[in-house]
Structure formats: C-alpha cells, structure tokens
C-alpha cells in the first residue's frame, strides 16, 4: 500500500539541501504553504533559489525565510509590495539576487518545466528591459522572446484536501501556482488542511493528480 502521507512538516522537508531550487506556491498569502516554510526555516538550509510570485509579505512565511538568510536568489514577478520590507532591505543591501519575470512568463516557464518542453517563444516582454539580452524571433508578424523552463528540485504548495496517493484539490483562488509548480518539481510536498480517504475525491474534480505529488502533510487549522 502506497502512502504519501508524511507525519510532519519537519519530516517532509528533511531532504531539502543547501543550494536547492524550490518552487513555493501562493499568490501573496493565498495558497502560501506557511507551515512548510516554517519547517524549512528551522532546517536552516542555505543558498536556496526560491520561485514564487512575490517576495514575501510582512514578517511571516516566505518573508521570514528571506529574513533567516536562507535565500540566495528569488525569481518572481512582483517583489515590491506595501509589506515586502524584508525583501526590500535585503535587495537594497545587495544581499539577495532578484530575477523579475512577467507573471504569465513565470507561469509558462513553470509549465514548460513540468511538461518537458525545451523552450518557448512568448510575446510577453518583447522590446522591454525584461527581454534584454534574450533571443527573439518574429513569427507570423508577431515578435516573441525565447524563454527557458523553470524546474524545481522541490515544490512546497498548499492545498485544501489530499489523499494517500497524493491527489489534491484546492480552495478558491489559493489554487494559483500550486498545480503547475507540483508538475514542474522533482519532489513536491503539499500541505493540506484535510487528509481524506482514497476515493473520497471525485476523479472528475481532482485538480492535481498524485503523479505530481510526493508527500502530503496534514496541517490543521491554527488554534
């Protein structure tokens, strides 16, 4: 009997090594796997490359991971927010590398990573600073930029429910990057609010099939 349920966040992230590339789900706080990130901070892995839409909010979750000095580089679309002060300070102090990627290109590169494409031509960012130095091509009169896949050694994502085969469903707009990051990573760890019996998730409704998920950790609602 195959069981992908892992007892704790600490155990789930225990193989994350220094220098790993980690795709972390979430759009702002929605879908951010806060407890997995907390466990990662405790582990104190160093030189991480983090891929997320943002660069942390406030003092918790991804922001706390940055503050703990675990992150060498962040790849994101929107680092600057009203409450991204931890990132802002690190960036201005030259203590973190930043690669800004248009949000749709970020999604498309992650999808390319998960689906085995070698590169894609996207129209987004053509002629802008974010395409500087990149290969371009005009196809049928439209200008495109060549972009390469993003793959993770690990993905940390948050879902609503999961089963022992790793099947997942999400909650509302907390779905965001979860499904595509799961598919693009060698080892995907999902924190879920509820673990359900095999068969409890309707096969028509499963959003992330278990093939993309390697560990499922139950994180109950906060007390």
């Amino acid at each position, binding site marked *: 009997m195959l069981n992908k349920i892992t007892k704790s966040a600490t155990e789930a992230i225990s193989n994350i090594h220094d220098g790993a590339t980690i795709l972390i789900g979430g759009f702002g*706080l929605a879908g951010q796997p806060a407890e997995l990130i907390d466990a990662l901070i405790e582990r104190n892995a160093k030189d991480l490359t983090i891929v997320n839409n943002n660069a942390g909010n406030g003092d918790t979750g991804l922001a706390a991971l940055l503050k703990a000095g675990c992150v060498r580089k962040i790849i994101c679309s929107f680092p600057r927010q009203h409450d991204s002060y931890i990132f802002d300070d690190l960036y201005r102090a030259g203590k973190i590398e930043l690669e800004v990627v248009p*949000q749709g290109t970020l999604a498309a590169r992650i999808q390319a990573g998960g689906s085995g494409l070698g590169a894609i031509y996207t129209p987004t960012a053509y002629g802008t600073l974010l395409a500087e130095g990149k290969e371009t091509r005009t196809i049928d009169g439209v200008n495109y930029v060549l972009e390469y896949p993003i793959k993770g050694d690990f993905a940390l994502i948050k879902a609503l429910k999961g089963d022992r085969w790793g099947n997942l469903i999400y909650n509302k707009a907390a*779905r965001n990057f979860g499904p*595509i990051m799961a598919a693009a990573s060698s080892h995907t760890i999902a924190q879920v609010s509820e673990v359900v019996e095999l068969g409890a998730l309707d096969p028509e409704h499963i959003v992330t099939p278990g093939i993309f998920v390697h560990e499922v950790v139950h994180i109950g609602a906060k007390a």
Partner: protein
Amino acid sequence: MITNYTPWSVDEIARRVAEDIEEGMYVNLGIGQPTKVADFLPDDKDIFLHSENGVLGMGPEPAEGKEDGDLINAGKQYITLLEGGSYFHHGDSFAMIRGGHIDLCVLGAFEVAENGDIANWFLGRPQDIPAVGGAMDLAVGAKEVYVMMDHVSKNGEPKIVENLKLPITGEKCVNRIYTDLAVINVTDKGLAVREIIDGLTFEELQAKTGAKLINNT
C-alpha cells in the same frame, strides 16, 4: 489663471470607462485606479471580470466579516465570485490573457506614447525595485487595452507623449486613453480626441499633452 472646468474624479473616469464596456465582454481591470471601473458596471448586463490569479466572474467586495483570504484579486483585495464564475490555475489564467481571450484590459499608466506604447511597470530610478506582475502579459495579450490615468503627472508633466521616457511595458498596444480631461483613441493616424470634459477647449487639452492630438470630438 481662471479655469472653466473641473477635471473628472477617479470615479468619474471609471464611470466613463464602464460606459464603453459591452455585455458579454471578458475584462481584466488592472491594479489601482482601473479596479474602480467594477463599481460602475451595469447590474443588468453580464460582463465577466477576470483576475490573473485564477478567477473568472469576480463579483463585488464581500460584506464586512465575509472576507476570505483565499478569495482575492490580483491587487490582493478581498472579492466575491458570481454564480457562473470559476477558479483555475495560473497557467490557464495566463493562457486566457496571452492567448487573446480577454476582450479588454484596463490598465493604469505612467506614460502612453502616440503609437500606443505604454509604460506602467517601472520608474527605473536607482531606489526603485522592478516589479512587473501581469502588466506585460496584459499589455500584449488583451484584444483591446484601455488606459486610465491622470492627463498630467503630479508635477504637471504630460503623460501622453511622442516617445516614452520610462521603461516600456508593451509596444503599440494601447487602443484608448481615458484621463481626467479627455477620452482619446490611439489610431493609425494619431491620437484622436473623442471627448473633452466640459469647459476645456481642444487647444487647452493640446497644451497639456506631449504629442499631437487630432480633434475628433
């Protein structure tokens, strides 16, 4: 100097944009001022609001106490979902944008050039941190791009210009500009003024604009 006009408020610009949105359109409202457009959409028409974080069919703000941290828009404000709305992941959401399925996107802007170039993501000053979000995808992907902004900057500089001075977001993608002073179409022949607020003359508008205008009012 005596002026005979009162610039439109943000609400008035938003209302004006809303008037031009037709039933059945799939619309993305950018972060900031454009978000206001939602407040002026007619209740009796089905207009589909898309949010790039994976929501189609956004409804109004939730009632107090009904906020859900998992139901937010691209500006990370609490929203609701209409009956008939749906959730999907970021890949599908940007397929909608990049694939030309969004009929209309309303964006804020720092500058718009007479050829439809738009700058709205980065001021490029030493102290600025670049952050693009979905702006570049929306600029190139939406079938039509409307810009909603003040006609001049806080320092009185024209925001409609011959050539952008700021880093570009997307090339030749703006179709129409709504400001606190006018509604202007970006056409092959140039910037065609469609509407000027009461009390402002075309010449006065031209004086506040950094590119040549055509009077089509």
